[in-house]
């Protein structure tokens, strides 16, 4: 008998998501346009704020745009589906999913990975090219920094996925989690530096942000890309990212187990 590949269902789900995404071309073009507009608006605002200075606190306008482009680009790649579990709870298909002989969490990751791969090729790449041609970007600080950037960006995805995973699990009790997701998204946008670069945050704010996982999502990869961190610091920051992934995932996993228990005892 042919040996079964236990991962083949997950690849099938990832592939399905990748192909599904390519079906909605107009939506896809509009997404790229909206991200470009967002970058352009931020660029214009900061150009006006900079006036004729070339740098503020050692940060040049090109570094700033690089931060925006990379954060927005990575944001376009990551986009975990916050309504994956709530949607399944709403339409009742959570029952079907729990009975399937595959891991639900594994499936969540697989579907998100399929989406992320699509976004990486068809959103991140075009956005970077458009931004590089029309606005101008900093090149990566070096080949090694570029590689570390990729590793750290991957870990950033993990952090964002874990946050989304943990928040989604509250749907077992709250059912409608639109408000809590909105709060999460505000935190992610403001505290991750994708709206206001963390360089310009006051010191007390830095201290607060240091205790949150949000700067690990986009800001750490951006700093590595720009070469602002030594290799020792890079190793430290990546470890922090990893710790956050494990910590938040563990919380989400406890909620997931309790949520299933609730379903089994009280019914869905």
């Amino acid at each position: 008998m042919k040996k079964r590949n236990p991962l083949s269902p997950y690849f099938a789900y990832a592939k399905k998501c990748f192909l599904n995404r390519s079906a909605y071309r107009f939506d896809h073009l509009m997404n790229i346009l909206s991200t470009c507009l967002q970058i352009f608006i931020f660029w214009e605002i900061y150009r006006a704020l900079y006036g004729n200075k070339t740098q503020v606190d050692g940060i040049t306008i090109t570094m700033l745009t690089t931060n925006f482009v990379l954060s927005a680009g990575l944001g376009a790649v990551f986009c975990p589906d916050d309504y994956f579990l709530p949607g399944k709870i709403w339409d009742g298909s959570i029952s079907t999913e729990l009975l399937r002989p595959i891991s639900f969490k594994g499936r969540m990751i697989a579907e998100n990975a399929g989406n992320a791969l699509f976004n990486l090729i068809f959103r991140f790449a075009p956005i970077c090219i458009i931004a590089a041609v029309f606005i101008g970007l900093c090149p990566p600080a070096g080949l090694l920094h570029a590689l570390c950037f990729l590793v750290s960006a991957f870990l950033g995805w993990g952090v964002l996925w874990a946050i989304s995973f943990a928040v989604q699990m509250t749907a077992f009790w709250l059912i409608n989690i639109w408000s809590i997701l909105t709060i999460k998204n505000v935190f992610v946008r403001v505290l991750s530096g994708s709206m206001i670069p963390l360089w310009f945050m006051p010191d007390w704010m830095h201290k607060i942000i240091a205790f949150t996982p949000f700067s690990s999502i986009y800001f750490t990869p951006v700093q590595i890309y720009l070469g602002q961190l030594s290799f020792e610091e890079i190793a430290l920051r990546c470890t922090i990212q990893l710790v956050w992934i494990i910590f938040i995932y563990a919380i989400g996993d406890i909620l997931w187990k309790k949520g299933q228990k609730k379903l089994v005892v009280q019914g869905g």
Partner: protein
Amino acid sequence: MICFEKVSKYVLSDVSLYIPKGVCVGLIGPSGAGKTTLIRLACGLLEADNGNVITLGKNPVKHRGHFGSRLSVFMSGVPLLCLDETVKQGFELIKEVYHIPEKNFSKDYSRLADRLGFNGFDSLIVKNLSLGQRMRAELGASLICRPELLLLDEPNIGLDEIGKAVLCELIKECCERGMTVLLTSHDMTEISKACDRLAVLNGGRLLFYGSEEILKSRYVPTDVMTVTLCGSLPDLDDLPLNRYSVEGNTLTLSYNSNYVTAAEIIKLILEQTEISSVDIKKPDLESVCSSLSEHAIIS
């Protein structure tokens, strides 16, 4: 294959039920009787408050998701196929999820698609299908992994007469190959064709478990005959009727068909008067159930 030992949960109280391999059991009872709760307990989506449930030799709650292709569950109203993909794509995913060998899959797929009639629309997106079409596709999806144990909750909702007949045939064939089936339905006539045994639930209690013949002979309730008369009122005092009432020129009789046949009644009426129409109502599921619950209360 499934064993319930004094199980209580929500409406269900003290249900004991054993379903051996290769048997098709039909679970009937009025809405709210606990049919779906029983199915959900059997597949491990609910945990019993009291008593034990053993499915395929294991505790279904602890073992949920690890039965592989041995267990397949279909619940009407719970999507089995993703709504945003085509029927064919949905089946391909199920093939991967249950690790179904390509050879078996293509053979079973063409057979099921042909029998259940979804080969005509298997390239359409699931959410664009009509209810009946979707039910056909999803029933196919629950059979494609060749399960040992199949749980079907209200499988004939939305199916037309041909669809119901095909479903019955498929279930029978599967049982002949050794598959165990537990299904619920409101529709007693359809369900009884496919089932070896019936289990009657009402108000959370298992009132009867056994073959249809025994159910009918033991608990047969009364038939009701409505006669529209053209002439005078006949004298029916000699017949062992349970009840009779007159309203204008309509005569309503209820009687136990074990004691008196419809032919005898009609013969006696025709000897005395003219009739314009006769309508006989056989006991339906509801009356079997209410008759059963009366028995249950008495005993």
